[in-house]
């Protein structure tokens, strides 16, 4: 976290201010993520379409697997690829902890409620297996997803989605949403800074709430204005309600080879 951002997070109080400081943190993190996704790691050098398809194969394998060993293999392969692509252990640990906490809460009742052979303290063997499978699946699949997103620039990921025949309009909408989220975070930050620069001391809670509401109102009004202008800008360049996009270049032999190995390997592992 940059020094200015750290200052922002710790100086300001109140729900809105804290939320906005977190938004600034999102900007900071997205910038770091973009740097990582364009660095020179193993996965960064692979065609985004291959990565997207490969991640899909790994996720399907994990979802269909009935073996903890196979789930562990998916997890180990993904983590190895992550380290070969310069992902930080801290990033992965943060992901794993939140996944385990969230999924743990969901998996906990299964320990006691699933009928089967008792192991003590109300826990059954079948319940323990079900909970372990759930946690292992979520851990493996979320790691695959996270590694894919961390090693692929967002705009390349969108192009890859287009290559898999996702409706162009859906891909364009996702891209525009992503792009304008950052503009609005920046606008919100500017408004907040403008407000702070004209304040001396703390405002009473009631006035802070009123000011927060006013900020949200202004932001909404700006969002409507911007969306109207964007539509005009699209119309001005020939948009008539249907979006057209360029086709992608064909995959190389190496890309097909990687995908084939992954698909065959996953198929064999699942079949056994």
């Amino acid at each position, binding site marked *: 976290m940059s020094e200015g951002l750290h200052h922002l997070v710790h100086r300001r109080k109140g729900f809105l201010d804290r939320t906005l400081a977190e938004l600034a943190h999102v900007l900071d993190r997205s910038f770091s993520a973009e740097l990582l996704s364009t660095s020179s790691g193993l996965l960064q050098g692979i065609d985004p379409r291959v990565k997207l398809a490969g991640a899909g194969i790994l996720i399907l394998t994990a979802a269909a697997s009935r073996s903890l060993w196979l789930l562990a293999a998916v997890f180990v392969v993904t983590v190895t690829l992550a380290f070969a692509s310069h992902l930080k252990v801290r990033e992965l640990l943060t992901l794993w902890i939140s996944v385990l906490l969230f999924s743990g809460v969901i998996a906990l009742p299964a320990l006691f409620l699933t009928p089967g052979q008792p192991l003590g303290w109300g826990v059954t063997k079948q319940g323990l297996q079900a909970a372990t499978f759930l946690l292992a699946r979520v851990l493996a699949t979320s790691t695959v997803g996270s590694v894919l997103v961390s090693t692929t620039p967002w705009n390349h990921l969108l192009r890859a989605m287009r290559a898999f025949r996702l409706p162009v309009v859906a891909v364009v909408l996702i891209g525009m949403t992503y*792009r304008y989220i950052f503009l609005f975070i920046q606008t919100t930050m500017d408004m907040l800074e403008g407000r702070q620069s004209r304040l001396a001391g703390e405002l009473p809670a009631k006035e802070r709430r009123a000011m927060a509401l006013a900020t949200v109102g202004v932001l909404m009004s700006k969002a409507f204005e911007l969306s109207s202008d964007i539509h005009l800008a699209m119309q*001005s*360049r020939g948009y008539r309600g249907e979006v057209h*996009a*360029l*086709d992608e270049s064909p995959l190389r032999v190496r890309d097909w080879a990687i995908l084939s190995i992954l698909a065959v390997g996953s198929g064999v592992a699942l079949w056994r």
Partner: protein
Amino acid sequence: MALNVFELEQVSFAYRGVVALDKVSLSIPAGQRLALLGANGCGKSTLLRILDGLYFPDSGIVKYHGVPLTEHDFEHDAFAHSFRKRVGLVFQNPDVQLFCPTVFDEVAFGPLQLGWPKDRIKAMVAEALEYFEIAELKDRAPHRLSGGEKKRVALASVLIMDPEVILLDEPTAALDPRSQRQIVDLMKSWEDLGKTIITATHDLHLLDEIAGECVVMDKGRIAGRGSPAEVLADERLLLGANLILGR
């Protein structure tokens, strides 16, 4: 004598009751480099949007090449495609205009919507990126670019369609001096191409370079018209339009 690209007769337009243009009459000959001068809120941007067929007047007539321009005309693909190819608008705020995930996609957007062959588009985009010196930015996300870079991408995204009329809304606003100079030099380089260039601005110091004719606007009306030298010499006109401070 050059034919008029646009003719406006008594054009009025209001945003929810707030008058933006009030009985504006104006002729713009083909090949003219026209500057629309005026303070913020005088109706320059609204006029550009009317010329680009994005807004339609509440009253009055806008003619394009002598033919009245109506909302109904744009319901037909053939007319809409032809007009969008021939008239291009560069918006004041590049964030409005840059909505694609990469610079390459952004520049390709217009030609793709007009249904041009995809192979031709790829070659043209590459050429446009080189011309605007933004080839190294082609895979970058537009929201990560500097103000000057965004402006050049916005220009490239419109100029790739090679329009005969280029409408520019405050092209040098909020740019550092170097980026301003780059944009002005680009505009000067179009001088010999015979294009009609209509620029909304309040940068008086650039007038000589970007325009051969000026229209001064004030509160939605045309307050005066003349060459840059004539307009700049008319202190009363500039004072009345809030373009300079009184002594």
